[in-house]
């Protein structure tokens, strides 16, 4: 693979997850952020040639692809800027806060002939990839009823997460992972009903809890339930799924099949002392490698810009339903030409 010039925008949690993957892929990475963290992150990876810049034009001058790891409310403008400069774009999920913005971004990428890759990384988590492969091969027959849960501590480290005006709230920011996956397995969604409870306002602090629940009805007739929890500080990150069809069930609990566990380490608290060891390749590496191969003319990634738009459509419908208490209908045909 030829050396890829990557412009990484943002230096928060997801950028720190993407950066080692880019380095592993041999990319030359330039980082930009507005909070001063780009310099610190670049310094930590200086031996891998990572550098920081202070302006977007400088970043676009150096980069062939842009990896957008910024808060959701900034995605549209930065994506359009990158596309206008002829760059392929990796955009962290959700693509945007509204369907109109997401569609505008996808349309712009198509018109410019560049890739817009929504980083729905759950598609690359090995258990989920195994599920998708089996379901696509008829492993359970036509999916009938699907359940997904996703829980972890409230992301208070970055206050914009807790502000629905900036992140869309738990339905849009967190549960979109499982909305995308439910659609992947059971097809387009025609009706959404959702509710949220707990802390939904800006200013959340450790100890606050927000939760969302959504029921999706697919065009096939299948139904999906998604539960999301931004929970107490000690809520271990955990995802589960159960997919049932006439041919059987597939189910998984991320905390039940860890491969490696520390059973005792004396007085050191969990998370300190003996580090966890990855059991599989980082899903971020799998994800970004697939994108990099596509940039070089290889097969298109498994997640398309349209998938990203559709995920936003489901999430936005869920948010509307949570506001009104009524289900929201989605027309599946209008994006057919995208």
């Amino acid at each position, binding site marked *: 693979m030829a050396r890829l010039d990557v412009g990484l925008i943002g230096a928060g949690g997801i950028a720190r997850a993407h950066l080692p993957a880019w380095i592993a892929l041999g990319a030359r990475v330039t980082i930009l952020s507005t909070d001063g963290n780009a310099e610190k992150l670049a310094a930590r990876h200086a031996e891998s040639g990572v550098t920081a810049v202070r302006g977007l034009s400088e970043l676009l001058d150096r980069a062939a692809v842009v990896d957008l790891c910024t808060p959701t409310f900034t995605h549209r403008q930065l994506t359009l800027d990158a596309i206008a400069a002829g760059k392929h774009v990796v955009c962290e999920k959700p693509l945007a806060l509204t369907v109109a913005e997401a569609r505008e971004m996808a349309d712009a990428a198509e018109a410019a002939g560049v890739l817009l890759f929504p980083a729905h990384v759950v598609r690359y988590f090995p258990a989920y990839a195994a599920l998708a492969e089996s379901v696509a091969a008829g492993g359970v027959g*036509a*999916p*009938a*009823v699907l*359940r997904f*849960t996703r*829980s972890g501590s409230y992301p208070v480290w970055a206050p914009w997460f807790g502000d629905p005006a900036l992140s869309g709230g738990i339905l849009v920011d967190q549960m979109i992972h499982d909305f995308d996956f439910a659609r992947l397995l059971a097809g387009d969604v025609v*009706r959404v*009903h959702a*509710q949220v*409870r*707990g802390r939904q306002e800006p200013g959340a602090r450790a100890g*606050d*809890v927000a*939760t*969302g*629940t959504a*029921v999706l*009805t697919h065009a*096939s*007739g*299948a*139904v*999906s*339930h998604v*539960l999301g*929890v931004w*929970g*107490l500080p000690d*809520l271990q990150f955990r995802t589960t799924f*159960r997919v*049932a*069809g*006439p041919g*059987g*069930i597939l189910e998984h609990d991320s905390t039940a099949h860890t491969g490696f566990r520390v059973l005792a380490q004396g007085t050191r608290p969990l998370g300190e002392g003996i580090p966890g060891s990855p059991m599989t390749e980082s899903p971020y590496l799998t994800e970004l490698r697939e994108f990099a191969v596509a940039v070089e003319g290889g097969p298109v990634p498994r997640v398309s810009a349209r998938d990203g738009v559709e995920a936003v459509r489901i999430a936005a419908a869920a948010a509307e339903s949570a506001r009104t*208490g*009524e*289900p929201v*209908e989605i027309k599946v045909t209008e994006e057919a030409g995208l």
Partner: protein
Amino acid sequence: MKDLKVGVLSFAHVHAGGFARLLGAMDGVRVLAADPDTDLAAPGEVRGKAFAAQLGVDYVDSYEELFAWGPDKVVVCSENVRHRALVERAASHGADVLCEKPLATTPEDGAAMVEACRAAGVRLAVAHPVRFSPAYLAVREAVRAGTAGDVLAVSGANNGYMPGGRRRWFVDPALAGGGALTDHTVHIADLLDDLFEASQVTSVYAQTNNVLYEGEVPVETAGLLTLTYANGAVATIDCSWSQPRHHPAWGGLSMQIVGDRATLEMDAFDQKVHGFSEASRAGVELPYGVDLDALMLREFLFGDGSGPVGVTDGASGLRSLRIVEAAYESARTGRTVAVG
């Protein structure tokens, strides 16, 4: 002490055999069964005298004979649509009734049953054994004591085999009242009725399908419900008959409870040894948890109200029935249905 006389009315329900066996094994209990109305059974379903012989319980050919025996209490295990007539009959004979769930196929029937038992001065109880699950009681303790904080959301699943293979009437909407939505919504609805101390359900949203048994049964076999409660909680229930028919386990019942001070999870049936049998070339599960049916029956027969939990009463069973009725309306219209 004089033996308690307990009648088992009908073997139509798949739980009838288990109840009869447990009752027959209890000290101080005499059991008599009658299962005269086998007209709705499918060929091959063992019912009536032959089934009683398998169970080892005494049997009479008619309900007249059973009531002439003078039962103190009866357990009604008929097809759902026949619950009302049997419960009213028991009430008229002054016998306390434990009725299989759901209480009836319509809230109108359920209300009439509650009224008949009230007027006759007999107890009406509904068979919801999961209230007796130690896992549920641990949840209840945390919620009632306030250590879980306010409950924000509950995600519940009560999945099981599609029961039409063992008893065909379960998939006949005229006899059962519906499919999975009728059969499996009420267990979790009942737990939440108890957990939330009868907090009113204010709205119901439900979606159903029959992807699992398309062309084989005429009722919904999968369903998801969203219930909002007056106390602010929102609960979802997966009531699907989505347990594969050759799975070693019949199904299960689990709930995740998200409170603002704790997140809890319970599974009423996960205490099992798992293995694999080379002889049968199939997975093996050995349940070792407490027998919830036995706890429920014992409380119905001998309970003095001092136990940690009581058997579901008719009023509670009727509340669950109203949720099911609203869920069918929601599934039909695609809209949220207000209740109460």
